Structures are given as structure tokens and as C-alpha cells.
């Protein structure tokens, strides 16, 4: 009898992450294009706020990170759902993997990609700034060129959260019915609760929001692994 191969889950996850991060990279290139389309081409004026004082009317076009973050977060959500679709799941079966290892690998890839997404976001932001600088030389105000670490963390955690929700949703759809239904209901309740209390959530300090987002992300990740562990392979 040939001796059996003993491979730990950790080794396999590491290998899967290595390959997935490389093979799914077109997701990142699409983020770049999305960022260029939305951040640079579409939002040419930024968000504006006007003040009128006597015969002086002042209009501020504010270029903040909002649009870049919204695009990145939605991108993460879509990419995460895509990672759980059939085409990607079937690819996993071609090498040593289990649903659990694939789910964990997807989570790591999502985290890595969220990080890169933040860097891409910043890059686009500065390119946008450069564009404004070259086009509107006179009325150019830099309030602060450096993005504060707390904002960066908030961006990362927001993108991560959307990715985590996407992974959880995508995995739930393929999971056993007994698990699928409560998870999706729970998720919908959570999203509606958040959107109702969005204003009070946004009043919190950046760091607290980040921590809440990261906590929910981790929760979603755990649920994702748990569901994946119970899921059968469906190749139809």
C-alpha cells in the first residue's frame, strides 16, 4: 500500500490563496477601470456646496474619497459574489481542496484584494487631484494631501465588509436550504437595520466605525466557513 499523503489544511489554503490571488487578478484590473470611469471621468465636478453672501456667491467643488470608496465597496461585493459562483467553485475541484479550504482561501484573497483596492483607490484619488491641478490651476485648494490612517482603515474595513457580505451571500445560496434561508433573512434584517440607523452610525468616530465593520466582517467570514463546511458540491 502506497503511503497516503498527509497535507494540512493550512498548507492547502496557502497554496490556494497563492493561485487564486494570481488567477482572479482580472477583478483588480476591473476595479482600476471602474475607478477611472466613476472617479475620474464621471464625477468631473466633485460634490458641490454653494454659499451666497451678499453679492458674492462661492461655490466649492469638493473632491473627497467618497466616490472612490463607494465604487470600491460595491466592486468588492460583486467580486465576492463572483468568487462563489460555479465557474470559480468548479476550478477549485481540479486541485486538492475542500469546500472549507476554498472558502478560507477566498476570504484571504478577499482581504488581500480589499487592501490592494484601498491602494488603487488612493492612487486614483491622487490622479484625480493631479487632473484638477492641471485643469484648474487658480482655484485649487489642498486642505490636506495626506489621507489620515483612520480614514484608510475605515476605507479598508468598508471594502472588507462589503466583500464579506458578498461571500456570505454567495456561499449561502449554495448551502443547505436549512441554513440558507435563515442566513439570508438575517442578512437582510442586518442591512435594513444598518440603513435605518446609518446616520447615528456615521456620528461615531472613524475608529469605532472601522472596528464595528471589521467585527461584522469577521462574523460574516466565520459564517461563510461554517456554511461551506456543510455544503455539497453542485456542478449543475
Amino acid at each position, binding site marked *: *500500500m*502506497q503511503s*497516503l*499523503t*498527509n*497535507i*494540512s*489544511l493550512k498548507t*492547502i489554503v496557502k*497554496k490556494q490563496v*497563492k*493561485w487564486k490571488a494570481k*488567477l482572479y487578478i*482580472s477583478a483588480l484590473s476591473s476595479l482600476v477601470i471602474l475607478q477611472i470611469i466613476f472617479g475620474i471621468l464621471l464625477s468631473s465636478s466633485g460634490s458641490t456646496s454653494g454659499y451666497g453672501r451678499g453679492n458674492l456667491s462661492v461655490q466649492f467643488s469638493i473632491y473627497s474619497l467618497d466616490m472612490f470608496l463607494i465604487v470600491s465597496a460595491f466592486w468588492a461585493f460583486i467580486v465576492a459574489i463572483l468568487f462563489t459562483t460555479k*465557474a470559480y467553485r*468548479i*476550478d477549485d*475541484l*481540479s*486541485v*486538492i*481542496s*475542500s*469546500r*472549507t*479550504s476554498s472558502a478560507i482561501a477566498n476570504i484571504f484573497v478577499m482581504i488581500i484584494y480589499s487592501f490592494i483596492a484601498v491602494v488603487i483607490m488612493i492612487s486614483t484619488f491622487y490622479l484625480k487631484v493631479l487632473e484638477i491641478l492641471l485643469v484648474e490651476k487658480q482655484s485649487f485648494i489642498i486642505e490636506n494631501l495626506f489621507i489620515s490612517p483612520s480614514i484608510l482603515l475605515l476605507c479598508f474595513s468598508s471594502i472588507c465588509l462589503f466583500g464579506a457580505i458578498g461571500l456570505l451571500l454567495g456561499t449561502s445560496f449554495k448551502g443547505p436550504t436549512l441554513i440558507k434561508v435563515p442566513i439570508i433573512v438575517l442578512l437582510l434584517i442586518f442591512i435594513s437595520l444598518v440603513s435605518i440607523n446609518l446616520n447615528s452610525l456615521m456620528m461615531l468616530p472613524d475608529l469605532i466605525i472601522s472596528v464595528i465593520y471589521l467585527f461584522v466582517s469577521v462574523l460574516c467570514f466565520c459564517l461563510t466557513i461554517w456554511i461551506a*463546511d*456543510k*455544503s*455539497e*458540491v453542485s*456542478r449543475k
Partner: protein
Amino acid sequence: MNIIQCEDLSKSFGRRNALQHVTCAIDAEKIIGIIGRNGAGKSTILNIIAGYIKPTSGSCKVFNENPFNNIQTAANMIFIDDRLSFSDYLSLEDILKFGADFYPNWQSELAYRMLDYAGLDLTAKHQQLSKGQLATFNLVYGLVSRCALTILDEPMNGMDEAIRTDFYRAILKEYLAFPRTILITSHHLQEMESILEEILLIDKGSIIAHAPLDEFKEQLISLSGPSDALADLLSETEVYAQTIVAGMTSAIVDTSKLFVSEDLLRSKGITLSHLTASEVCKYLTSKEGSDIDAIFD
């Protein structure tokens, strides 16, 4: 040593029972042909063994562990069928590197030589391959990974006649070089039977035969001779099929229930002939009175 042990295994998809109370044991390092008609339950049992799906009831042990979503099973098992797929971004050469990274027993050199022999372009993408080329590549992938349990589900589907023979030989030679358990399903039992050690015949979700190939073939025998000479004999044994033409009867009967010596039969003008494995399969799985001729009567 049993590599696979199924006990009272059942699986249903909704109302449809795909497997019903299957009990079987498969020894290590054997080439086993899994035969059955379409929808007999072959894929279901293979999917359970591979750990892809969960049995509804009963237990299945692979390498003494529950295979379902088990990384140890996955590490020692490879499942090759026509649904094997790889990322769009990988060329065949990349796929080989990909496999080599995962499977510890991977045979890189051999893979290159086999693909070269089959005339596959290493820079091609997996999706661009024709059906036959795809089957060839997948089979090579399955063989060079040298997993203790290699499941080949219709590995020759779509391959040219000429290359099929070559690749059955390739399976055998690879098996000789690195003995492992190989489960093969195929619609063409005839062309692969010589490399098989055992046959597992599945019909309507149950295993109806599991035996070494020769024993399996000897299970049934064909008798032909004058109808009157055969009549008595046939009433005592189990008859699987029977045709009567101009006073001559030929019948397929269960060998184990035939207690007459060959010499006696010969003296009565009855000739005995062996059946091929695929004929045995056909008769064992055909429904009572299900004869294509009956449709036209």
C-alpha cells in the same frame, strides 16, 4: 486493506432515490470498472466517495475517514471527468505547474511526454481544446497526479479510437509503475476490460455484482441447441434471455444454477459459449422481458 467501505449507503435527490442501501468494499491498489447504465447511480456513488456530496443515510469511509469535505481525502484523491475545469488564464503548461504545486507525487516529465505524444499544444488554453483533446488532457492530469485513489469518470469520452487504446495502455503502465486504486467508468466495457481487475455493476441505485473480472464473466453462459433438449434444463435454472428460431433455442443462463457437466451437454448437441463482459452486464441489468425485439412485436 479496504480503501473504500460503504455501508447501507443511500442517497436521494428530492424524491428520486439515486442509491439504495449500497454496501461495498473496495481494496487498495486495484483497477476497478464501475459499470452501469445512464442514471444507474454511478456518478452518485463516485461523488460520495470523492466527498462532494453527503449520503442521505448509511456511511461511507474512504481511507478510514468520512470523505465529505475532508481535506485528507481530497489530498489523496483525484476525480477526473469532462467537467474538470481550469481558470481561463492558465495555458496547459501553466496547469501542469499548477497541479505540480498541489500534488506531491506529481510526474512533470511524464505529463510533458504524454501530452507531446497526444499532440497537444502546451500553449493552448483548456477551454479551447476539442472534446477529445480535453479528455486526453484531463486523463493525463489524473494519471500524473498519482493519487492513491484515482477516479476516472468516462475518461475516454470523445477521444479518437486510435488514441483510446493507447491511453488504456497508459493507464495500465502508470498503474504498474505506481500501483493505486483506480475506479473507471465507461460505456465501452469491451475496450477496457482487459486492464480491469474487478467489476462493480450498478443498476437502479444498487450494486448487483462486484467480482473479479473472470468470475464476473463466468456468471452467465450461453447455451444453444435443439429446443426439446434444452427445455428441461432451462426450467431448472434462471434464464436471462432466450430466443427460439426454427426449433433451435439459445439461452443465457446463470452458471451457478447449472448443475450439468459439459460433456453431458455436448452429447445432447448443446453447445456452450462464454459471454463477453459487456454482454454479461447487459443481461444482468436488463429488465425482465426487456428486449428491443419486444417493442416491434
